[in-house]
């Protein structure tokens, strides 16, 4: 592959509805007011690993460069520590915007391959939807089975330690009101299904 990657963007690459769609999510309404000061990136402990800094993600999302945003690793590296949200001088809830972008990436099934986090999120989601609770080590196991066998082995030692210290649960925990939970989550299930669509890809 050529070492020279074209960096230009054409207007045709913009999705002019994208910003509005994101801003329709509760918590994301202020996306448009960003003054690009970079405080979010500055406080973020993970920005140094991101291909686009949080500030730039806001900038790209606002401009409608959907593909750049949804395929970035930024949204998946966000660990929801809310530091950007509390420090933003325009009170933009950046963490919520990151959530909205994650949801969208899963919905459209366009997230980066090789990043297990979307898979984790989905498995977590499904486990809780079924059982009402998560059992961490089971979740981890499932995750590794679905993503990275090697990691599984690397973490093997840890598993044993957890067993030794009694922090490993052999049974999967669940709530009594599972039926109630189903009813609770049923009605607006369109997004849920979209999640599993994401899974199919």
């Amino acid at each position, binding site marked *: 592959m050529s070492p020279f990657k074209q960096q230009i963007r054409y207007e045709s690459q913009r999705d002019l509805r994208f910003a509005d769609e994101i801003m329709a999510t509760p918590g994301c309404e202020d996306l448009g007011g960003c003054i690009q000061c*970079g*405080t979010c990136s*500055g*406080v973020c402990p993970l920005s*140094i690993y991101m291909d686009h*800094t949080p500030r730039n993600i806001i900038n790209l999302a606002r401009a409608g460069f959907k593909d750049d945003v949804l395929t970035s690793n930024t949204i998946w590296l966000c660990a929801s520590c809310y530091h950007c949200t509390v420090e933003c001088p325009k009170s933009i809830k950046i963490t919520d915007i990151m959530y909205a972008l994650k949801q969208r990436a899963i919905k459209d099934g366009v997230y980066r391959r090789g990043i297990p986090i979307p898979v984790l999120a989905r498995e977590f989601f499904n486990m809780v939807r079924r059982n009402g609770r998560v059992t961490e080590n089971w979740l981890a196991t499932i995750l590794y089975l679905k993503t990275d066998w090697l990691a599984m082995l690397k973490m093997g030692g840890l598993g044993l330690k957890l067993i030794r210290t009694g922090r490993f649960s052999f049974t999967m925990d669940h709530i009594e009101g599972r039926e109630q939970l189903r009813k609770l989550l049923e009605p607006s299930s369109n997004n849920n299904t979209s999640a599993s669509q994401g899974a199919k890809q």
Partner: protein
Amino acid sequence: MSHHDHEQKNGTHGAEEVRIGVYVCHCGSNIASMVDVEAVAKFAKDLPGVVLSRDYKYMCSDPGQELIAQDIKEHKLNRIVVAACSPLLHEHTFRNATKRAGLNPYFMHMVSIREHASWVHTDRAACTIKAKEILHGAIARVALHKALEKAKVDVNPAVLVVGGGIAGIHSALTLANAGKKVYLVERDATIGGHMARFDKTFPTMDCAACILTPKMSAVRSHPNITLWTWSEVVKVDGYVGNFKVKVKRNPRYINEDLCVGCMECIKACVFKEPKFTDEFNQGLSKRKPVYIPFPQAVPPVVVVDPATCLKLKTGKCKQTCVEACGERKAFDFEQKEKFEEIQVGTVIVSTGFKTVDPHKLPLYGYGIHPEVYTALEIERLINASGPTGGHLVTKKHEEPKSVAIIHCVGSRDEHTNKWCSRVCCMYSLKLAHMIKAHTKAQVYNFYIDMRAAGKGYEEFYNRVLEEGVNFVRGRVAEVTDWAMTPEEEGRLVLRVEDTLAGFVRRIPADMVILATGLEPQPDAQDVRRMFNMSCSTEGFFLERHPKLAPVNTPTDGIFLAGACQGPKDIPDTVAQAGAAAAEALALIDKGHVEIEPNTAFVVEEECSGCKTCISMCPYTAITRDEVKKKAVINPAMCKGCGTCVAACPSGSIRQNLFEDVQVLTEIEEVLVRES
């Protein structure tokens, strides 16, 4: 005009036939689009007293006004009703038109069918009905109007200037040079304000003291200026042209006329070493209980701080200061606060600003990390007459290798102040330039947007760029003492996104300077009330109109100058101070102002002398004639609020233009439902 006199005599519209002319304005399509103006005009025709009723495209235009004048002459109209925009906008226009046609202007009544109807409704039918009803009220009301004359009051040529910063100093000198008497009142012990603390001024870099101190001493020596420092305005009564002002003069325990500013007393003070916080130097140095804010202070008179002076605190002190003063006998420990009552015709408010308290931004660590400073502190540190004699050194007395200047501290930030403080970019550039000149340090400017809008400002920015100052476009996220690399050890570390590069940087610094923004004085609200002004949402004093009346306030005769109206640099402040002085001069040289005649008056025969009204009046305009046992209202003092009218049990107090009968008639007629 004979019928006017006749009218005035028998009070209401009694004798002569009422002949009303009605004018409904289209205001282009502003009104016509939502109100069927023809229908409204037609409806008015049939109302009692209406002789003619017209609709017209633009009533406020010359032909529109001419139309009224013509009709008054041709149709012998003696009442005019205009239904158009808000009376607050064009009432005077149509009163003048009426007057020009020889009819008393107060026979014109105006109602708004634009702001209060066409602009706020979408149902044309309902809006048209509303317009008719509003008009109906006006027509019924105008029939009861009387001829009134504006009272003329002389304007006292003396001017009060509140606040002795560069704005107050400049207005005071401008007025005094025009031969007007000026009272300049300053809360601090010296005039000069913030500017006196600066070392240099951007973009020309001429020294602040060199520009300011000559003006300060000019104030001191000017025969037309009475300077009261260490004093505050505490009460303002009266109205444009005739304000009565009460000034509180705090005791400085020194007789100003006897002190020559030799400062012997300071040397002689029983405190051998200065040990109290020096406010002028932002607490970076110490002073004694008897002190002078800075060497060129005006007046050059010491002041004694009662909180720290042994004599004043304990009564027990050798009073070596008094000995040192000797024959001059300037000390007076018995001094009490005293009050001065002055009469002025106009007031210029130039009370200035305060800088944001950086404690409000914890991530910058002000007050936690000793090497974090405010820009004002640096102004003192870098000033030859400052605590370090102009040497920029850390608290450990070392020259910094790296200095970081953070812009927008407490500006453009919803957690503190939303607005841009306008001066920070430029003074940060100034400081960067000076630090370059004073030290070998690497200097960084961290900015969100560089705002160098002003004559010679962009050029100055370029100059500083070329001097090799580092510019990083990004708002610093945190200032910590958390070192990750050897070079960071023992220093402050700034974490910031270089937004132009698109990555995060860690930058070690030995000194961090916070370019704190400008905000209203903490007591701005009290001052606002005292002078009957308004504030804009952020708390700065509100000008009457940003473009048409930028230095006026809603209260006639009170003007604004400087940063109390909004963040401003020195050139803009001085320009505005000149404008405020000019506005005051315009009033003074005209010599008089006209007072709206909507004042209250007593109908003697009906007054029972019960005194209810006297306590009602906020302006003490009402007294009781003890001989006649009746209330008497001084029309010059009455501002026409009508509170006494509403309170009078016998209904014997009336308010011109707002008599009960007029208001009640309007109320009843607007309530009559039209179809």
